[in-house]
């Protein structure tokens, strides 16, 4: 009974916030305040009561991260009436996300279906000449919905396979990554920085239940797909000149590495959640940082046209550099910790696979560094108007950096009450690394 009440609170508060937003629609400030304060209340409740919830396989970290993601995405967006929908929808998404994470056998999938359908409607309605409608993306989410429905009405292993298809849409894996990329590039206002955290975290949560029941042959195919996808994401990211696509493909590459590790161990541990959460947060943070540039220089600004921000916008420069470091997997941030944690505890299924994963990790040093360098360094341009971060923007980016730092430094036991099995065993005999 207590569990049900707590779950109801976790899910209900964001919806209550969304209702407040609708009630005060004409007052833009109040809508924004509601979009910020409700996730904060949710976070406080989670901190207070999370230990009374049954521990999920992937730990409690996703529960903590979702409200943080919602707060920072709302904070990073300037006050404008055009953003009211995005703020309200981020509360709805938060509520549905919570429902997916803590909901039972029926309520969780129902929340997920609703969430995906809302995303599809938003994608159908919101497109511009710069980012035209993407039927591939919308169709990809359709596969996600079909996967959830089929997993409810069929038995394993078919239900596991269909469930995994949904996971591949949410936690992007080639060739199901188009939905994720479309959401990241087309969703309005503050939604993309939140959605890049929300969808992968939900995908991992579903994968944690589906993966252990997967047939071995299918897991081998997933492993191969994951390796291909990690290289594909890295190559595509290296080729992009548009920041949102660069970040999108970059995160696809990292999420694919996560798929490879999870497929290798047949389970999604709390360490996998660290990597998923950290990559999502870092990508979200970089999207907010790019949003800062778009706010100042226009939506369709070419990053090549900007340089020398480091001397004129020092606060922005420091935070963007730290976010860049975090996103490319440099310690002591969460992406490194998650990657390293998986690398140490999940025995690699093949040597070649290990080197492909490392190559994808290495590629991030090129494309992210190039982007950060392009914006921050180079010649100071007199024709550009430089304005450093405003307080909400600064707070938003700072929270992301601190959260990433916490993910990197805190022991995994902090967000998982279960004893983490250490899969590493010092080998007593010669090992066969090739499969």
């Amino acid at each position: 009974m207590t569990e049900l009440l707590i779950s109801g609170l976790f899910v209900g508060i964001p919806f209550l916030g969304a209702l407040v937003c609708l009630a005060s629609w004409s007052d833009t400030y109040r809508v924004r305040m509601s979009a910020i304060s409700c996730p904060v209340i949710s976070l406080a409740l989670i901190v207070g009561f999370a230990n009374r919830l049954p521990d999920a396989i992937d730990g409690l970290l996703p529960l903590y991260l979702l409200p943080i993601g919602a707060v920072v995405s709302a904070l990073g967006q300037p006050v404008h009436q055009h953003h009211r929908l995005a703020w309200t929808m981020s509360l709805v998404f938060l509520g549905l996300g919570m429902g997916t994470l803590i909901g039972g056998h029926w309520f969780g999938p129902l929340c997920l279906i609703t969430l995906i359908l809302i995303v599809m409607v938003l994608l159908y309605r919101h497109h511009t000449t710069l980012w035209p409608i993407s039927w591939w993306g919308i169709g990809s989410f359709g596969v996600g919905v079909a996967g959830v429905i089929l997993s409810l009405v069929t038995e394993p292993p078919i239900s596991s396979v269909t469930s995994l298809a949904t996971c591949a849409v949410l936690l992007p894996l080639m060739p199901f990554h188009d939905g994720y990329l479309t959401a990241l590039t087309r969703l309005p206002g503050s939604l993309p920085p939140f959605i890049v955290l929300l969808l992968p975290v939900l995908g991992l949560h579903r994968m944690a239940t589906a993966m252990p029941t997967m047939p071995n042959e299918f897991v081998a195919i997933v492993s191969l797909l994951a390796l291909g996808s990690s290289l594909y994401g890295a190559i595509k990211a290296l080729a992009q000149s548009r920041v949102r696509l660069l970040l999108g493909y970059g995160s696809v590459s990292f999420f694919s590495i996560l798929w490879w590790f999870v497929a290798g161990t047949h389970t999604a541990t709390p360490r996998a959640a660290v990597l998923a959460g950290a990559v999502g947060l870092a990508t979200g943070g970089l999207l907010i940082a790019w949003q800062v540039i778009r706010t100042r220089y226009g939506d369709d600004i070419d990053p090549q046209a900007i340089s020398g921000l480091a001397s004129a916008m020092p606060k922005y420069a420091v935070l963007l550099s730290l976010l860049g470091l975090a996103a490319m997997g440099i310690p002591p941030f969460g992406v490194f910790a998650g990657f390293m944690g998986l690398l140490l505890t999940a025995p690699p299924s093949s040597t070649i696979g290990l080197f492909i994963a490392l190559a994808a990790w290495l590629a991030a040093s090129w494309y992210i560094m190039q982007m950060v360098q392009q914006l921050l360094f180079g010649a100071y341009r007199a024709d550009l108007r430089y304005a450093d971060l405003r307080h909400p923007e600064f707070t938003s980016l700072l929270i992301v950096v601190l959260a990433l730092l916490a993910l990197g430094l805190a022991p995994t036991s902090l967000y998982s009450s279960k004893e983490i099995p250490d899969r590493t065993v010092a080998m007593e005999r010669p090992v066969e690394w090739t499969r």
Partner: protein
Amino acid sequence: MLVSLVLSIPVLLLIAAGIVMTGGKSPHVTRAKVGAVPIGLAFLGAIGVLVLVSSEGPVTIRFYDPASVASFIIPIGFYVDRLSAVMLTLITGVSTVIYYYSTSYMFQDRHARRYLVLICLTDFVLICMVSSGNLMMLFLFWQILSYLLYLLAHNHVHPGTLAGAFKTFTLLRVADTAFLGGIAVSYQLYGTLEFQELFARAAARPMTLSILPGLEVSAATTVTFLLFIGAMGKSAQFPLHLWLPGSLFAPTPVHALLHAGIINAGGFLINRLAPLFGLSSTTLHIAFVIGTLTAVLGATMMLTQNDIKKTLGFSTIGQMGYMIMECGLGAFSLAVFHLIAHGLFKGTVFLNCGNVIHKARQEPHFPHTDHGDEKAGFSRLTWSTGFVTTLVIPLLILLVTHGVLRIPLLESHGTVIILFFIWITSSQAILTLTRLRTVASWKVSASMLLTLLFIVFVYLFAVESFTAFLYPNSEEVASYFKAADLADWLFDLIVVTAALMTIFGWTYLYMRAHGRTVRIPIWIESFRIRLYTVFLNRIYADELYKLIGSMTTQLIHRIDKLDRGWSR
């Protein structure tokens, strides 16, 4: 006492950074000077640690539970033994000088404050790296150092500096990735990243890995080879040396720190993991080949450069090659001795090279290169000195090494090869003296001879004492030499080639000095000129790097275009 002293060193460096970073802009010069005090205190602390560690033994400080290293991803802990203590002293000592020098050197720079903070942070990272308690912490600071090197380029508005900084970062990341692979494999195999445990388990459980079907490699070789690539990056070994000349736009004190401290990281890593490297002859042989190649290429390119910073840069690459070659021959302690001596020397030279450049800009005739007023001729004295130093002294060294120091030369390939390599390089240096004309007086010759004798003997005795200090167990030292032993035919080939090259060089120059014609086929002469052009252009490695970069970019864009039809 020892624990507090060890912990105080990084804390003092952070305090120095804090002093420079905080406060308003107006009195920043005073704060910058005050910042030197904690760094100086850190140096004194390092000396204290060196003394205490020498007498009391190594100290271990852990802020984590070693049994759960993977759940606590970043295990902060310190392990300070004699090797670490020596490195602590070197780094803090050099840093104190460099920092104080920088406060004046960067006085009028707009971003002097940021620069000084970065210097303090780099020192902090270096200190934490050399006193790391486990492989994971070492790697953590190793990576941060790669990024700090990018930031220390300082003038990010200048396109050349920016390109150099980017190249530095990306090349170092390549090496870092191999290092990461080494850590992952070693943890998978041995289940620990704690140094002592790792060494014990690796020695107790020899294993082989099937890397590819039909390709079996020993576990120790796999781990050490990957870690060695990491070391190659930081120590600018061929072909990962390109970042070092590319970073020469950075302020001069940064070079002093780079060449005196940061670049030694590779040598330190191999020494820190000496028991592990000692288990793999293959990796040691690879290190020997890479080191020799880097030493030869670096030194040759140094001779052909016409820019003082590039000359010094390639000199460092050559010296680092020498150091890695020593490691490859099992002479780990010699490599540490070498890196200390080289660090002190190169730091001093770099701090002075700014003045030389400044002076050259002010005086058109500086440095003086015109020797037209000197009389050409054959100096018997100079040639006698050359004969003694190149052909007699090596014999003396061999006798002293064998007879007085009782180093069993016949049983140690490594020692002999190092001695022959010393012979060939010192001969090359000494034979250059024969080009001197009017200054070839008896005083000069005598002082050169005495200095050379002094240096050679001090070097030999000092190295021997230093080896005993760093590795008190002589059997351990012998085992490293044994592991690095080469095949007999290769050993003979190296020794004979070294001897022939020296004698040939000596004869050739002697004949030319006497005005005799040395018949050299035309194709050799034209090849020599072409070779000069190649080395002047630094074996076109930068161009090759650019070509590979542009080809990769083209390929990536082609793949991207292929995919555009259906993606998104």
